[in-house]
């Protein structure tokens, strides 16, 4: 039997088609508010926005720069001026140390019409110190009571210095590989090159390890390959002032993970070597064997270092773990340094807590002592707790404003007795 044909599907189909046609017609009747802005769809018709919609394309070759005065050239573009105020009071063993300063930082970059070719950075402070005691962020200040005009960073970077000798293909292939630095900046040991400790109370290892955290140097830095960066410098080894007192200076080299590891995994790290001669009055005072072998303050120096920092996001903020370790020698004294730091920053970027343990061991005890002299101990170690409230804590660190309480408990001292140092700091950088 032939199945009975129903008309219902055709009726439903016809109804649906009619509905769609009506919907399409009514939709077509609505004017798209952007239709007349879309030049390609309305070509040939008068478009009141055509002149805005199709602006003149930029010239293929950049126009020659208009002549500018030297002041406009220097201060008008890519010139940064930052101001700084630091008020710090430290208390230890009945002594009160005040260290207050105003300062500024300039950063200038220079460009040709097609390339940024150089950058200059300088940091200055006018500091007032009263009754200096040993605190972790002012090792150099112990002998600077009263007013003192200080410079910190002072260096010039020249980018892609071999570009004038290269073809366009070679420029592209070696982009970022050969940058030249000359001036005063952080030592290429540990994480200092990647860490701005200009305003913080907690410091990294270099100042205690070498007697200075910055030095005068010249050399190359850049990209080694997609995974590694390099720094290779000749350092004067003189610390604050550029001076020669017979030292040969040092060679410093560091190979570090590319910045992409920090971005992708929160990981920074590197290995470094420094070798040669430096000036260090402190190293000579600290160890009789160094004093015996050093030529005045000229200390034969070798360090190999390993460093790492890992930042991890946690639900309420960020945790950061830092390690710096070096091994080597001052003259014939073996030296081993360790620094561990854990840091928490709340998501609001308003509150931070950090704890640091540092230990500096030196094999001081091998040489005979002068009669009546006490042999210095082998270890300097301390633990510090740092609490910070941030008024401003820009992620780019271009605006910083905080109050900080730092408590350092010295556990072992090579010279003197262990004390507790309490520091209160107000800092603003803008």
């Amino acid at each position, binding site marked *: 039997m032939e199945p009975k044909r129903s008309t219902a599907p055709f009726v439903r189909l016809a109804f649906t088609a009619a509905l769609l046609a009506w919907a399409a017609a009514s939709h077509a009747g609505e004017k*798209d*508010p*952007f239709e007349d*802005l879309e030049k390609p769809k309305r070509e040939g018709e008068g478009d009141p*926005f055509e002149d*805005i*919609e199709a*602006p003149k*394309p*930029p010239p*293929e*070759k*950049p126009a020659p720069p208009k002549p500018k005065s030297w002041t406009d050239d220097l*201060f008008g*573009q*890519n*010139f*940064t001026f*930052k*101001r700084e105020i630091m008020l710090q009071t430290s208390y230890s063993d009945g002594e009160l140390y005040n260290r207050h300063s*105003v300062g*500024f930082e300039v*950063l200038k*970059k220079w*460009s040709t*019409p*097609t*390339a*940024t070719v150089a*950058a200059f950075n300088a940091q200055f402070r*006018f500091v007032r110190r009263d009754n200096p005691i040993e605190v972790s962020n002012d090792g150099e200040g112990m002998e600077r009571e*009263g*007013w003192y005009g200080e410079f910190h960073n002072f260096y010039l970077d020249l980018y*892609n210095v071999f*570009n004038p000798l290269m073809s*366009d*293909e070679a*420029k*592209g292939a070696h*982009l*970022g590989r050969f940058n030249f630095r000359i001036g005063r900046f952080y030592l290429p040991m540990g994480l200092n090159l990647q860490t701005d400790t200009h305003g913080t109370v907690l410091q990294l290892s270099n100042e205690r390890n070498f007697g200075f955290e910055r030095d005068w140097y010249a050399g190359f830095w850049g*990209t080694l390959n997609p995974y590694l*960066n390099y720094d290779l410098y000749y350092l004067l080894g003189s610390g604050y002032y550029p001076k020669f007192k017979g030292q040969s200076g040092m060679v410093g080299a560091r190979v570090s993970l*590319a*910045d*992409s590891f*920090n*971005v992708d995994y929160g990981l920074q790290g590197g290995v470094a070597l420094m070798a040669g001669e430096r000036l260090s009055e402190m190293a000579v005072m600290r160890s009789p064997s160094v004093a015996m072998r050093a030529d005045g303050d000229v200390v034969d120096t070798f360090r190999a270092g390993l460093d790492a920092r890992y930042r991890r*996001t946690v639900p309420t*903020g*960020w945790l950061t773990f830092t390690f710096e370790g070096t091994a080597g020698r001052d003259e014939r004294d073996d030296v081993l340094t360790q620094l561990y730091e854990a840091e928490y920053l709340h*998501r609001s*970027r308003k509150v931070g807590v950090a704890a640091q343990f540092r230990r500096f061991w030196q094999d001081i005890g091998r040489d005979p002592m002068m009669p009546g002299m006490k042999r210095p101990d082998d270890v300097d170690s301390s633990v510090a707790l740092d609490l910070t409230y941030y008024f401003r*804590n*820009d*992620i*780019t660190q*271009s*605006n910083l404003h905080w109050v900080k309480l730092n408590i350092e408990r010295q556990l072992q001292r090579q010279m003197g007795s262990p004390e507790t140092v309490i520091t209160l700091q107000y800092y603003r950088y*803008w």
Partner: protein
Amino acid sequence: MRRLLLALAAVCLLAGARRAEAAVGCTLSNPARDLKFLYPAMTTYREEARQLDTMPGGKEMFEALKERIGSDLDPVYETYDTPYTLYTVYRGEEVIGIVHGVNVPGKGGVIQVFLSMDPKSAEIRQLVFQRLESPAARALKAEAFRKQFEGLTLADFYKHDYYRAADPQSDKDKVGRIASPVKGGEGSEDFAASVRGVRKNLILLDLFCYNRRHEPFFERAKEALAKVKAGEK
């Protein structure tokens, strides 16, 4: 006397200092390598620092940014004195690209949204997340997600404001068709934060280097939305 002179010098420096453009804004972690990745044919690049509070008409630009982004600006990540860095990429003497990054707050932390742009058409060539602190980081960094932004302009974001209200199903709403790779999942808020970051970046680029060419779309979207709202009433 020496102390007095030092103190005076310090005060003069502080008082006389003009607020200068900061060059430490949302920068590429390794400009040479990152730009080479985005533009393999490049030979050189220029960096330019921009900061609204030091630019002529900066206050008006900041107000414009607030209005065009369509949501409140974050008091930590998006202030008037936030510095930005603009990279112009060259092959020989030809401009072949523009790259610019912004920070936006996400649920899991900071999101750094970099856009590589066609210098002529102002279309997105590539979206790159530099720092992306989110449980959804892997999904958001996936090429399939980022590819959805290629070819978009700021005009598409302004048009989205209208279509979202008037015709959510419209196939002209390119931004509305961007599919979240983490819909309803952990870190899904960071999808919205990322799209907002792209929009903010495009607005700043329109202000900094495209001579506000997308303004007619913003104005038209505003008018059309007002009509839609008036019709609803």
